């Protein structure tokens, strides 16, 4: 790894996107006061090898590549670094078109400032062309200063363990595990429920597209207690019925499903009273036990009780309502704020339910349930969205969809894995760049209903896509990590844990040997939040140290 050679140079690259012609670059080269080479369209890549050979002859230890916007991106820079045998961090990029744009915007103003005369505007054409090169030279000199101050950055190769830990043996977890095993990864499938034994697994797996689940180890009745390590080398402590087990894996896939809401953890806010307001899944059984004394027996199926529900709960409710109405002769009232039919078959199901006589009532705001005034049953009071008046209706039983009445279990699981939740408490932050399956932590993926999507056909597709993402992460076997992560000054660190709390990627930890906080380079995304938040100012990013930043603002 070179980078010890102190001298450095500039590569000026011209193409249409950089907005600088060869002539302008020649002019800049003479003014730079630093060794420079002029190249053409390095972004195209075809001239990269030849340019690399020329650059090797120069013997520069560090390089600033000034050219089109593309030259600032990691891939072309790394390619150039390889071509001239330098470390990736020894090559930095600079966008010349930015200088050109900046001079177009501010050039005229600056010119008039300098000359102090209004006639500057008359010469604005010539002035801006000159301003353009001056602006670019300034930018390059700043870039060189930053490059000079930058310490050599090493890389480390991290071995990636091929196994994947899949948490939750529901449809998404099983589909992901079977896809992973078909792609050649051993999978540990951890399921909290003891009843889901190998038999159930075999049945579930037979429905998968990716073949039989040979490499899958099922741990039923188990729970992950702790997760240590980072991407490529996680260690999970799993509580199994046989005692505690340590599992080594390269990635984790969370498919914990919807929280169990029939547990008392559902909270005091829960509408269930155990008598005639029940979770939806218990409605059919309770209805079959009703005495057959009334002429018309009415049931209520309530959706959107707390949150707007999804296609999946709408589908389930429509199927249930249809069965109760058609086969058991109940009058079913389906209460919802909106019917969610955004999938091919659902609109037809909705029509079938209406044709069968299910009364679909769309309400606004909150729906209230209390014991009916006369006799047994429950009174549902709501604002009808079409009549715009408050209506109340008596039913014998009400089944409320438990969606959105999640228990605290979700947050606990998330805390074990260090995964952020969205504003509704579902696994995975609501960030489009993470969709469908990534989380704030590299190497930890999420699939299935726990991330908020619970329509089965879609959920299975997402589980497969997420399994593929895990495969692509682990397949190369090694991960090359640049050691550009924050450095903590152990003398200044007061162990206040501010950085540990504020790191969005769970990259900060306490290094007990040093007695100070430290960052793990595999997980760190070099966002610099820790450095900004540290009250003791003990944290610095090597690529953005204080001296480099100062050189840029001066």
């Amino acid at each position, binding site marked *: 790894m070179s980078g010890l050679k102190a001298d450095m140079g500039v590569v000026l690259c011209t193409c*249409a996107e950089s907005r600088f012609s060869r002539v302008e670059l020649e002019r800049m080269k003479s003014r730079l006061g630093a060794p420079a080479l002029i190249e053409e369209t390095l972004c*195209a890549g075809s001239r990269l090898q030849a340019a690399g050979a020329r650059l090797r002859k120069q013997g520069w230890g560090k390089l600033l590549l000034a050219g089109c916007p593309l030259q600032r991106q990691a891939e*072309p820079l790394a390619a150039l670094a390889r071509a001239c045998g330098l470390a990736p961090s020894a090559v930095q990029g600079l966008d010349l078109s930015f200088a050109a744009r900046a001079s177009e915007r501010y050039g005229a103003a600056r010119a008039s400032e300098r000359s102090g005369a209004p006639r500057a505007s008359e010469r604005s054409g010539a002035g801006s062309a000159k301003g353009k090169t001056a602006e670019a030279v300034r930018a390059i000199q700043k870039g060189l200063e930053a490059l000079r101050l930058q310490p050599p950055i090493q890389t480390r190769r991290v071995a990636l363990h091929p196994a994947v830990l899949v948490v939750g043996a529901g449809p998404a977890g099983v589909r992901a595990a079977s896809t992973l095993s078909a792609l050649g990864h051993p999978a540990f499938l951890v399921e909290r429920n003891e009843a889901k034994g190998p038999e159930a697994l075999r049945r579930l797996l037979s429905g998968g597209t990716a073949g039989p689940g040979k490499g899958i180890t099922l741990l039923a009745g188990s729970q992950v207690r702790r997760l240590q390590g980072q991407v490529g080398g996680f260690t999970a402590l799993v509580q199994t019925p046989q005692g505690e087990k340590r599992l080594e894996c390269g990635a984790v896939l969370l498919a914990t499903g919807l929280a169990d809401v029939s547990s008392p953890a559902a909270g005091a806010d829960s509408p269930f009273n155990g008598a005639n307001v029940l979770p939806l899944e218990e409605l059919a059984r309770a209805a079959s036990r009703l005495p057959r004394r009334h002429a018309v027996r009415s049931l209520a199926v309530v959706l959107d009780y707390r949150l707007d529900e999804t296609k999946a709960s709408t589908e389930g409710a429509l199927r249930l309502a249809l069965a109760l109405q058609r086969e058991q002769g109940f009058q079913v009232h389906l209460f919802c704020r909106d*019917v969610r039919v955004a999938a*091919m078959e659902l609109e*037809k199901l909705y029509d079938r339910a209406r044709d069968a006589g299910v009364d679909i009532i769309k309400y606004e705001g909150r729906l209230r349930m209390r014991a009916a005034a006369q006799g047994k049953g429950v009174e549902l009071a709501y604002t009808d969205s079409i009549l715009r008046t408050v209506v109340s209706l008596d039913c014998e039983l009400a089944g409320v969809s438990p969606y959105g009445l999640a228990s605290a279990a979700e947050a606990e699981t998330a805390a074990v894995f260090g995964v952020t939740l969205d*504003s509704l408490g*579902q696994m995975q932050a609501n960030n489009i760049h993470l969709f469908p399956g990534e989380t704030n932590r590299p190497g930890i993926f999420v699939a299935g209903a726990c991330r*908020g999507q619970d329509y089965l056909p879609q959920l299975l597709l997402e589980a497969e896509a997420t399994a*593929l993402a895990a495969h692509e992460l682990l397949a190369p076997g090694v991960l090359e990590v640049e050691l550009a992560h924050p450095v903590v000054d152990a003398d200044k660190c007061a162990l206040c844990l501010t950085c540990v709390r504020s790191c969005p990627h769970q990259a900060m930890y306490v290094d007990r040997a040093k007695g100070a906080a430290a960052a793990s380079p595999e997980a760190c995304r070099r966002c610099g939040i820790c450095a900004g938040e540290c009250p003791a100012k003990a944290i610095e990013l090597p690529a953005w140290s204080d001296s480099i930043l100062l050189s840029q603002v001066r």
Partner: protein
Amino acid sequence: MSKYLIVGGGISGCAAAGELARLGHEVTILEQAARFGGKVLDYCCKATDSCSRCGVCVAASQLRETAAHKRVHISTGSTIRDVRWNGAVSVRASRRNPCIDPGRCIACDACLKACPAKCIRKQQKAELVQYVVDYADCRLHRGKECAACAEACPVQAITAGGNESALDFSADAMLVATGHQPYDAARKIRLGYGRFPGVMTGTEAEELLSRQESLGESADSVAFIQCVGSRDPKEGRNYCSAVCCAYALRLARMLKYRQPQAEISVYYIDLQNFDKTFTRLREELTASGIRFVRAIPFRVERSSAGKLELYIENPDGGQTVVEHDRVVLSVGMEPDPQAAELAEKLGLERNEFGFFTGAAQGRLFATGTCVQPQSIPDCMASARATAVAMVACLPRAPVRRGAKKPPPDKTGGVRPGRRA
């Protein structure tokens, strides 16, 4: 290593191609239009001060990544002529020239300047730059000899020998991702589309808002009419298009942010849950003053003052008339008109609405909006899942541990000697 053929270079096709290439396979994409990328290139970012997760930016970077991958070959302006199955698939296609290879193009503008007929346009979407040939104006297609663009190209990315070339491909499996077309709002004659200038479709509104701040001058009151051409048994379109609530509400949110004084109403049947935290989004929109009305206007007229009058039927049988400056019709998705022809050529099954049934038939797969209406992130996720299934359908096992793997991509998938 296997070879795959993908029909359709939209976001679904490109997402699947990117995955297959990353798994070490060769992929060829046939795209009928002069540019690849499909409809997603016409959509705009719908962020205000915060992201609304429409997925357009993610799609643009996926497209660029796919185009730059050394194992992906995109052939624009290409149409399938003949398909033969003999275990594998062999396809004969014809390609219109000049054809610009997006994998090689370095965006140097040389072809643009060289073209004597000025028929090459430059299109940019986020970091994706491509040059689009307008065949109608091209000298090659007017029976003249011309290869100015091909000669000017410094990286030999352009083929311009003859106005058409025949291509023969063979592949181990094939994916159809031909996409959708938006519902033609002019079919709803009473809603005034095409008759009144203030009535536009959602896609047109998106295009306008990507260029300018508002929907034009004195557009202080905007109505969004949902379910135009969707959920409509009378039209034989008894399905929900799944994306119109999403784009309408995101556009409404964007408009309200840009012009807080604007009055925005959304006329709807049912709002679909399209976002992870939809309840919060709905609360935010209601709090910002966007009016939600559960009714679909049945007629749009123009008043003498030049305003648009929306006629709404009341539950009691009467009518309400409301006035707005602009009306945005949230048109749904319908199958591409050429889907029927393609289905016949390939032997693909279609459902009653004309969408392909998603089920794989041997080594033939379909994904994206040609299977069912879906959003950009959903398209990308299902395309990736389809890529897994495509690899699994071949007799040889996919990349296994211990087995010979393709050498690790040192270039990060960027083809050597070409643009990243």
